């Protein structure tokens, strides 16, 4: 057992379902905002999402084309590395499976998402395929607020939420794994909340 702190009793969240709250996390009813810089404002008429395959060929959608793709609505728990978790959040977006459906070369095995404002994050391709990730543009039935990543953000709920890049403008598939923004500042390369992979070496 870990080192005991004299006098600490804690404030247990007895109503929180233990099997849905990863170690070191607490449940919040709010939706905190964490971003490293000013919130980018992206007009919908300028918005694009571009998928680049390992050979450099691109497919790109404007807002109208993108939101006309088949969408899915999912209700998921999200876990931020700063210790808060939020249960039962509802999002609507386009599954990465849909975006990768027609002929994109998936050989590389890695994907780097990038965002308006310069943010990046890296993931194994298998973590964004098979019904595990979406480009979400509605939250709780409403257009996604810019502070929370609108017009559209990546949603990968099974990993810490910094992987769910806000303001996404594209994804680059690659055969090499290149660390993204927080991953190069010492955060864990993979970020599984259930294994408490917050920082490098966890």
């Amino acid at each position, binding site marked *: 057992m870990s*080192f005991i702190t004299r006098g600490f009793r804690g404030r247990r969240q007895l109503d929180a379902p233990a099997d849905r709250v990863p170690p070191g996390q607490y449940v919040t009813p709010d939706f905190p905002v964490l971003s490293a810089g000013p919130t980018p404002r992206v007009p919908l008429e300028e918005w694009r999402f571009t998928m680049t395959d390992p050979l450099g060929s691109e497919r790109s959608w404007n807002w109208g084309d993108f939101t006309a793709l088949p969408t899915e609505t999912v209700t998921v728990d999200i876990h931020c590395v700063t210790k808060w978790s939020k249960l039962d959040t509802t999002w609507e977006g386009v599954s990465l499976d849909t975006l990768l459906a027609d002929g994109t070369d998936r050989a590389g095995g890695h994907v780097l998402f990038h965002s308006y404002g310069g943010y990046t994050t890296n993931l194994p391709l298998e973590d964004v395929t098979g019904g595990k990730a979406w480009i979400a543009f509605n939250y709780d039935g409403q257009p996604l607020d810019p*502070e929370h990543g609108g017009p559209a953000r990546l949603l990968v709920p099974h990993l810490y939420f910094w992987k769910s890049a806000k303001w996404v403008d594209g994804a680059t598939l690659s055969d090499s794994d290149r660390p993204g923004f927080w991953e190069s500042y010492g955060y864990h390369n993979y970020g599984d909340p259930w294994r408490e992979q917050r920082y490098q070496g966890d």
Partner: protein
Amino acid sequence: MAGAALPGRLNWLIARATEIIEETERVRSIVLDCPGWPGHLPGHHIDIRLTAEDGYQAQRSYSIARPADDEQVVITVELVDEGEISPFLIEDLRIGDRIEIRGPVGGYFVWEPSRGGPLQLIGGGSGVVPLMAMLRARVRAGSDVPVRYLSSARSHDDLIYRPELESISSEVEGVEVLHTLTRRKPPDWTGLEGRVDRVMLARQAWPSFTRPLCYVCGPTGFVESVANSLVALGHQPGRVKTERFGPTNGG
């Protein structure tokens, strides 16, 4: 410690409280002696882990308030009424008590004198903590980077580090300290009043043509509004670094 990458693993270390400084009615600084501490940059934070007798644990992050000094780590904690860790740190922790910490964490929202300036620091409430670490590093190094420090608090009694900031402001060349009060002000108050908005920033912050490095820290609404105003005033988004907490940081 240089560069962005933090090598190796961040192990939990046992730190002992050696000094407690009451900053305001709801804010205290805790000086920790932490054998094995690897050092940090101004702006870094730490994770704190507390363990109850039955093994229950809770963790939160806190900004470090002073630049690196051997194995010393100083945090400044504001009481969050509904919080879990901050009530313990403010009401129960005594000198000699030991807690677990690990870090340094972060690495983007950091500044050291070699990064130059001018430096614009803007903090809301206890958001001034990492900014104070930067200012203290600038003063300690005897650097000539010009600094403007702007803090927003509800009332005069809520201003954190006030005596130290007064002496820095009067004794250190190139450092300008400004406070704005948003709710109550003393009758003889000569500082700023009201929220930090675009007009205040246009008058009091470094103008965008001086290309300052801006660091903004505070509650989400405060940071969102200040960062948007800085961009609207022509500051490059890439030179505006932010750190947000709340609405319930849960502290």
